[in-house]
């Protein structure tokens, strides 16, 4: 694959970041950070395709981060990653379109790859048009 998708992963646990980066660095260009401000900077400076944010983090929830990211660039695929998919904040975010998908935690790799694949394909066909 020539054009690797650019994926930004935000999680407050360092080991989650490291495992994610090593696992996916061959498939995607991976940015991984625990710091919401760094995440916003990355989105501003790079052509990010997908952002995956852990929901339960100190200071800012994943939903809050995704909301700010839509204001910077709303064409990015936004996925919330959480062990508590019943969280009302998440449901509301999906209803309002702040998050487009929910990924259960621990991560279902196949599900995530499928989401990114479908998105990249649709994005590619849109660019072709």
């Amino acid at each position, binding site marked *: 694959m020539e054009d690797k998708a650019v994926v930004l992963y935000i999680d407050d*646990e360092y080991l989650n970041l490291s*495992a994610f980066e090593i696992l996916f660095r061959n498939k995607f260009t991976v940015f991984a950070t625990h710091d919401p401000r760094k995440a916003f900077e990355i989105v501003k400076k790079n052509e990010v395709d997908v952002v995956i944010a852990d929901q339960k983090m100190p200071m800012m929830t994943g939903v809050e981060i995704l909301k700010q990211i839509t204001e910077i660039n709303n064409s990015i695929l936004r996925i919330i990653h959480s062990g508590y998919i019943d969280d009302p904040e998440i449901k509301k975010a999906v209803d309002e379109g702040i998050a487009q998908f929910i990924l259960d935690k*621990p991560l279902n790799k196949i599900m995530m790859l499928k989401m990114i694949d479908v998105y990249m394909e649709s994005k590619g066909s849109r660019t072709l048009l």
Partner: protein
Amino acid sequence: MGQDYSEKKFSVLIADDNQNNLKVLSAMLETLGYRVRVAKSGEQTIQSVETVKPDIILLDIHMPGMDGYEVCTKLKATEEYNDIPVIFISALSEVFNKIQAFKVGGIDYITKPFELEEVQLRVETHIRLKENTLMLRNALLELQKKEELLVQSEKMAALGVLTSGIAHEINNPVNFISNSVSALEERVKSIISDKKLPDSEMNDDFNKLFLNVATGIDQITKIVHSLRLYCRIDTDKKTGADINNLIESALTIMHHRFTYRIAVEQKFSSIPEIKCQPGRISQVFINIISNSIDAIEDAIKSEIIKEDQGKITISTVSNDSHVNIKITDNGAGIDKSIIKKIFDPFFTTKAVGHGTGLGLSICQSIIKDHNGSIIAESADKNGTAIIISIPLAGV
């Protein structure tokens, strides 16, 4: 507390060996609307009470056989009957020991010849007093029940904090273990299919991934260990426990709330085991540490401290008689005007729906149950210290 007595017909038992007195009093009280029963001796009085419990008793002192004092003593000694008000009847001419009458449990006395209005007022007053006492007692019981429910709900809230903490603390390592294993699998498969030894980059990955897995397993093991403690959160069983361990377990369970923003400094000195209720003592630590985290988050939000400057210091020391635990944070602090109230039940500075306002009050009662003390020191906007002292002798 108004109650309408007009509907209810109260019963009066009159005990007197003098037929004449019985007639006069019966007639009097029936006119006033009371249901009246009579007894002609001490023994008959007891029998009558045992058959149907009256609301009030008018009791003559001088009766053949069992006298009034004896009857009253016996009734007051029986739990079922000791709430019946007893008014003694005495003739002015008789030898009447008022002190003894009160000592055996009489509530009042009336003297012959009877005055209608006096009898009426005294009987009414004492029935009303008894009814009010009953109502107060019931109200008190209700309140106690409600308090128990609230204490229970605070316990459930503490359990809620615990379980969601545990879920997060276990889910997190499971997530990075699972991703790391996935990455290991991919690499091992590629080595097998390429029949090529890993290059230095892959070696590097292997080191990181195995470290991830080992760290994750270590984290989960720690959590499972601390869980054994919280199985006992709801029991009052006393066992020997190391306070340092209890604090470490609380910190493990709450790890996800610290992350990189809050540094925790543990200044533990070696302290002897104390006999205590470990689950309940842990509830105290969770509560206080949780408050510290809230205070630090407040301080960061209102820019009193910088985002990564949160700090909680926990020290333990023991002397000849006590273990002293000090939990200090550099959070928003407690205003002077309210610091005295923080241990009061239902006092809270948190928004409605966040906390019952019972947390610290329950902490205080748990520490008091251990014959210890808990105090708070704070300067506004300059952190808080909670100081707990528990006797080594335990409970």
